[in-house]
């Protein structure tokens, strides 16, 4: 049982924190949002030169060979700084599909380009009727000789408009909801018969809806095994959720800090409002939510690479549930304690709040995760008890 970072991890954390502190300000964020840019190319190149884009990839492809813990450190820093970069889309989601599913020759071509920052990718998986159900894939991949024709709709492709390639899930057999029959394909963004609509999300990030009307791809574009992509998609989604948990902890800790600072400086009734007990207790409840969320983000980061799939899924569902709930609470209270100022776009408080709210929704909100968690079997419960027998005594 050890919660310490290794020397290497501490160095990674320090360098990412320092880099973002120095190179990305809240003013720059507001500028990017006004320009409708989804990201800052110089910042992305900076992250590449730090080696951060190579975190999850094996060292034989030039990666860092990092675990969930390294990803957690990077995501927490990105959250704290309110960065808009497509780290989740390119490195965690699409990169995760490649890392866990692609053939050696595909990895040799793709991974170095992700790591040096020259190629952006996006993951086109969710569909209009799927809500949060990962297994709901209706897009079809029809055989056309050796090739496939992709037909269907994808929605909420995060950072889709800046991507050079998409990783698209499609059904090579079976029906929507079937665990078997889903395959992943690499699709070029400029492919014929591929249309789309780009739009902003309320947190300032951007997404894309894709329309695939017979997009032709060759057999070399298949990632992983034919019909067998669902376990891979689930593993990648778990990585994404663990990463979002860490980002949310970064957001919450920064938001809590600015709120406590505000309580100390804002004067009303001739004293700092932080002297009022009602507000003090609220700030403590926010701290409790933050620390409980941090514990779960650590759990998620530690279990996301576990070979025990049931254990991994359960930890991730629980962590995402806690993060959603805590993020909502901390965000709402931060607005409330800032009063009218919390409502403005000018202050970073509302930006933290909106990103936390978006993170709750992504990959299933707290209510959804709770329902998922509740139907999972008990895993390795340490405290097994023999409960008293149920017996009736006749009177």
């Amino acid at each position: 049982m050890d919660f310490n970072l290794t020397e290497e991890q501490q160095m990674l954390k320090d360098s990412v924190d320092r880099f973002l502190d120095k190179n990305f300000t809240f003013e720059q964020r507001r500028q990017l949002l006004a320009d409708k840019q989804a990201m800052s190319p110089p910042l992305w190149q900076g992250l590449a030169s730090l080696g951060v884009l190579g975190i999850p990839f094996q060292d034989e492809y030039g990666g860092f060979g990092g675990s969930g813990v390294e990803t957690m450190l990077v995501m927490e820093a990105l959250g704290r700084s309110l960065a808009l970069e497509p780290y989740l889309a390119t490195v965690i989601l699409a990169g995760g599909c490649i890392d866990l599913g692609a053939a050696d020759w595909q990895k040799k071509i793709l991974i170095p380009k992700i790591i040096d920052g020259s190629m952006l990718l996006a993951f086109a998986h969710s569909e209009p009727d799927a809500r949060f159900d990962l297994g709901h894939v209706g897009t079809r991949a029809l055989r056309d000789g050796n090739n496939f024709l992709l037909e269907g709709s994808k929605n909420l492709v995060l950072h889709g408009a800046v991507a050079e390639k998409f990783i698209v899930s499609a059904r090579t057999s079976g029906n929507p909801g079937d665990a078997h029959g889903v395959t992943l394909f690499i699709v070029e963004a400029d492919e014929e018969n591929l249309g789309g609509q780009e739009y902003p999300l309320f947190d300032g990030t951007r997404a894309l809806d894709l329309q695939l009307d017979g997009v032709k791809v060759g057999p070399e574009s298949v990632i992983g095994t034919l019909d067998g992509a669902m376990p891979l998609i689930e593993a990648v989604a778990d990585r994404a959720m663990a990463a979002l948990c860490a980002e949310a902890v970064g957001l919450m800790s920064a938001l809590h800090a600015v709120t406590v600072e505000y309580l100390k400086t804002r004067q009303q009734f001739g004293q700092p409002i932080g002297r009022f007990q009602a507000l003090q207790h609220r700030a403590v409840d926010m701290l409790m939510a933050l620390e409980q969320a941090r514990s779960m983000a650590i759990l998620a980061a530690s279990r996301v690479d576990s070979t025990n799939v049931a254990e991994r899924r359960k930890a991730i569902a629980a962590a995402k549930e806690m993060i959603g709930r805590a993020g909502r609470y901390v965000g709402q209270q931060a607005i409330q304690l800032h009063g009218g100022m919390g409502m403005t776009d000018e202050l970073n408080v509302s930006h933290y709040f909106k990103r936390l709210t978006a993170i709750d929704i992504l990959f299933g909100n707290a209510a959804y995760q709770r329902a998922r968690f509740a139907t999972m079997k008990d895993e390795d419960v340490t405290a097994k008890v023999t409960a008293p027998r149920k017996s009736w005594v006749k009177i």
Partner: protein
Amino acid sequence: MDLNFSPEEAAFRQEVREFLRVKLPGDISRKVLEHRRLVKDDYVRWQKILFEQGWIATGWPVEHGGTGWSPIQRYIFEEESAAAGAPRLTPFGLHMVGPVIIAFGSEAQKKQYLPRILSSEDWWCQGYSEPGSGSDLASLKTRAERQGDHYIVNGQKTWNTHGQWADMCFCLVRTSTGGKKQEGISFLLIDMHSPGITVRPIITLDGEHEVNEVWFENVKVPVQNLIGEEGRGWSYAKFLLSHERTGIAGVGNSKRELQLLKHIASQEQAGGRALIEDPLFRDRIAQVEIDLMALEITCLRVAAADRDGKAPGPEASILKIKGTEIQQELTELMMEAVGPYALPHLPMAWGDHWIGAKVGPEYAAPLAARYLNYRKTSIYGGSNEIQRNIIAQMVLGL
């Protein structure tokens, strides 16, 4: 970062589990697991078994008879003990006054009291709260006046747990009224068999006798029973409260109670199916289970920092509040799980010698009383509101 227990820690867990399997008396664990009433002898019997094993004082230094275990080992021990249905150790000697005597007591006091705490020869109780001094503890009025070689103690203490069984009481008393109210407080060890002490039961809302009023009328206490210096009692009391951080969260007990809650919810029928399959009830179980998972990691973070000799972070301060909120939620869900069978109230059926009829499933009988009783957890040990005041001040700097 590694959230797995090391092979040594896993081996330790096996050793503890095996010990509990062999040595924990079945009649005692049955009472704990079935939420029945424990008597003094149940606690003492179990503590003497732990004493013989050398495992009674898990937080004490080895030279005073402690185990010298790391905080993680203590966590494992508490978790396994709870799972097996071992009674909670009575904290007043082992976790409260013991560490104070070790830190601030004289050699004579250490020699006189520590061995008797370890062997459970003395049952200790706490004399802190007074009718007029609850959250504002430093306003306490019980007086101790020096007369030659003795203090003469007069006053009234309340919420004194198990004082009816106690041999000794550690008391906060006022030895001076000048200056700041904290500065006139001293820490006295009082023999409960002294003339002039009256213990009167307070019956709580569940019908039980757990706490007492204690009256002191010209009670003679030898001056050698003063801990440390006169007037420094408040700082010793604060030391006492800061001790045993992780135990206060009660994670092991809550994990056991969660399993029992699931068992009950799987037995109870609601709308033609097991209650545990009802989406609304299942949702509430899931939420408390996730809260508990998070608290367990939080607790382990605190224990690991303690082991590594680091100062406790802000996470240490939330354990009491979060731990008691979860305990209360579990008792509430268990009571709800049995529906109308929470209503019958048969306190005699939870005792040792009841052979009469029972009403409803056996597990249902004590659940409402437990729910009622557990409202105390957010009040005792510094109410959760006082805890929030402390965190706001000490951690957030407000």
